[in-house]
């Protein structure tokens, strides 16, 4: 008797499991406004999460976004702790050797944030200055190339901004969307900081979703969803929602 009940329960669970859509576990470092950030309800919100939900709807799968510290996010992907990273990861040659990337979904430049009264106006002015950036980001790599620059790396870009406000660094490098958000929109810093300029780059820098090497199935699923979202015009709607108020 009990055996039958037990078996029927098992069957129900099994069927329920099969009928459920595939879930992709996604790591995001939600300290990168307005791309990914935490809201007051401890939910990861921003451009990327919203885009992900749209892609999931179009692609017919479910997403589970996990907040992971940036420092170590790639190690976690390699260790199989989650299926993909959607955390404004720029597609670089160095990273391509270690992981697979989806189609690009966003173009970024590097923005330089300085204090309002700072004399830094061009790239040449950065020489020999203390420059802050989040560790392991393309902003950090760009900062390391500055002549005679003293680079300080931070675990989150917010701490770099706090140190800029405290005067321990002279400039902070970050993706332009993030730099703009801090310098123009943030409540704490918009009166004391400004976006000095954008770094010129020979090759355009794109963001992509990162997957462990060889995870073809998820990659195709996400690429298909992304293409559908772009085609349906939903991408532009989400873009407008998060980036129109910048100017």
């Amino acid at each position, binding site marked *: 008797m009990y055996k039958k009940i037990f078996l029927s329960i098992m069957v129900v669970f099994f069927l329920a499991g099969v009928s459920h859509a595939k879930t992709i576990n996604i790591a995001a470092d939600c300290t990168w406004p307005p791309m990914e950030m935490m809201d007051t309800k401890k939910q990861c919100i921003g451009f990327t999460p919203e885009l992900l939900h749209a892609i999931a709807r179009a692609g017919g799968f479910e997403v589970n976004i996990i907040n992971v510290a940036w420092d170590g996010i790639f190690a976690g992907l390699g260790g199989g702790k989650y299926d993909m990273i959607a955390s404004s990861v720029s597609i670089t040659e160095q990273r391509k050797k270690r992981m697979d990337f989806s189609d690009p979904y966003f173009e970024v430049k590097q923005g330089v944030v300085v204090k309002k009264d700072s004399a830094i106006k061009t790239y040449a002015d950065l020489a020999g200055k203390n420059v802050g950036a989040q560790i*392991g980001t393309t902003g950090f790599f760009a900062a390391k190339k500055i002549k005679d620059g003293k680079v300080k*790396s931070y675990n989150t870009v917010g701490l770099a901004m*706090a140190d800029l406000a405290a005067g*321990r660094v002279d400039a902070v490098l970050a993706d332009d969307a993030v730099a703009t958000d801090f310098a123009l929109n943030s409540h704490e810093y918009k009166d004391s900081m400004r976006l000095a300029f954008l770094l010129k780059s020979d090759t355009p820098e794109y963001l992509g979703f990162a997957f462990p090497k060889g995870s073809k199935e998820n990659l195709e699923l996400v690429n298909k969803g992304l293409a559908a979202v772009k085609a349906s015009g939903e991408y532009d709607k989400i873009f407008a929602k998060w980036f129109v108020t910048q100017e």
Partner: protein
Amino acid sequence: MNDNGKGPIHIGDGAAIPRKKDFGLFNAWWLAFFGAIGLLFYLCFFKKDPYFEILTYLADGIPVTIKVTVLAICLALVLGLITGLGRISRIPVINLIASFYVEVVRGIPLLVQLFYLYYGMANFVKWHLFFDKIVNFFIGTVLGLDPGPIIESAVIVGLKNFLPEDILSASVAMGICYGAYMGEVFRAGITSIDKGQIEASRSIGFNRKQTMFCVILPQAWRTILPPVGNEFIALLKDSSLVSILAVSDILRRGTEYNSIYYVTFETYTVVALIYLLITLVLSKGVSIMENKLNYYDKRH
């Protein structure tokens, strides 16, 4: 007592004849030290890629770690002595302040304190500006001279470059935390001295201050120094926490290297070996010091 010629002659403390200490090569310290040096040497010169590159990348983090540690130790010693004396003070207000400091600092995790003092207080306390203000006040206002030449002098500018704002802030935060622990060590050391010493000192006419500084503290030193040495080692290791504040110490440089090239195992192997070497040197120093101090306590 043993004057019948059969047993060893027991002479009181202070006059024992020291036995030669044996320096065997195969104790744990030598094994760890030469093991670490050998491994580091092997990795850097025979597996050059990427170990040598990691070492050169980390190199400028080593002086930062040492600077933070030394500065924090100096501050912690001063704060510890003041707190320790404050904790045994008979004046209620001083006692209360010292006890309050110890209770508060011991009750907050070091990492939280570091964040609080480094980022939280950054808008109020800027050490370089603070220094300038003090010079301005004493030279400018009190003495009525021009403070400019002193503030802009090569020595001061060099010192400021040697100890930038971030290292200074981080060391102060470390020092404040360890000052409380050190205070407890000092207090325990002072109270461990036999009451008879105080009574004897007072009865031959020393006042309270003289008793403390000429009789009690010199004896308490011997009890205090070994645990203080251990605190030094603990502080050195805890100084890796300042890497979270973006101070470019060994660990932070290692994390940076790893964030560029993604060679986790190799990077942290080198980081661990460097920390181990520095700590071993320090612990050797502490144990030499302890041996010197225990010289007369041993039954030889």
